[in-house]
């Protein structure tokens, strides 16, 4: 498990910012009168694109796959959630929270998978 505070802070920053951006963008891009399923899938794709680009931008500072994967996951989930909200503080907040939740899930999986695998 990563214990260096610089990298933990970087993980949090990347996931929260990618999540917030993806949540807001999905809320802004998807019209309210779309079918819910179409909106969620589109939001997820928008979010994943935001998360991937964000992960690539944060990577030189905080690590490669360790940043890109949780940031992309954050974008994907935040985009899905953001698609069901209206653009504004709410969609930013929901996106940021989704980012934190995705990072927490990644850390739990990391604690289970890290170490000898075969």
């Amino acid at each position, binding site marked *: 498990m990563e214990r260096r505070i610089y990298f933990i802070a970087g993980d949090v920053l990347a996931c929260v910012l990618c999540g917030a951006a993806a949540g807001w963008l999905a809320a802004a891009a998807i019209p309210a009168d779309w079918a819910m399923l179409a909106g969620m899938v589109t939001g997820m794709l928008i979010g*994943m694109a935001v998360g991937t680009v964000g992960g690539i931008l944060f990577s030189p500072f905080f690590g490669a796959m360790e940043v890109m994967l949780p940031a992309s996951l954050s974008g994907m989930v935040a985009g899905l959630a953001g698609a069901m909200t209206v653009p504004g503080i709410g969609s930013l907040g929901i996106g940021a929270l989704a980012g934190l939740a995705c990072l927490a899930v*990644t850390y739990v999986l990391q604690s289970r998978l890290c170490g000898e695998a075969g």
Partner: protein
Amino acid sequence: MSDLATQKKWDSAAALFDLIGGFGPEKRWRPHKRRLFSRMEGKVLFLAVGTGLDISCFPPGQDITGIDISPKMLAKAKPRADAYAGSMTLRPMDVHEMDFADHAFDQAYTSCTFCSVPDPVRGLTALRRVLKPGGALRMFEHTGSRYFPFRPMLDLMNPLLRTLGPEINRDTAANVRAAGFHVDRVTNIFLDVVKTIEATAPLR
């Protein structure tokens, strides 16, 4: 070298390589790389030495030959190789077409290499040829994942990232087995994506 497309791709990446990978990723991975490379002994082949970022993780006093397909990467690696406290030779070479004699090396090391080698099984088979029977192959690599949601995510991101540099959804441990090595140990560093793979060349 016949694979000019790959050479050109990495020549183009050389200018920004240290900027993109030299700080965050290297700092994050350094403790794990140091641990893996600390077991270097005998005549060592280091594949895809790049701009030489890994050289600072090498234990001193070793006899290391580093190869890379990109002359521009090697030009950047040269000052780092010159500063290494041991014997280090750099050669421009494609892993698929290595001109070393059979069984020339005791050990081979890689660091984020077989995400980028165009034909990984053929490259690993060529590597097996230049390793002594029973020689050690020790790899620090990123690979695909077996787990949801990371597996489909890596598959989706791969077409974009492949154009920038590496492939991110390969099963490198399976490729090592397919090339005829015995895989001794796989250790996950980050999820099941960043890992070390320790393998042995067959005795005959």
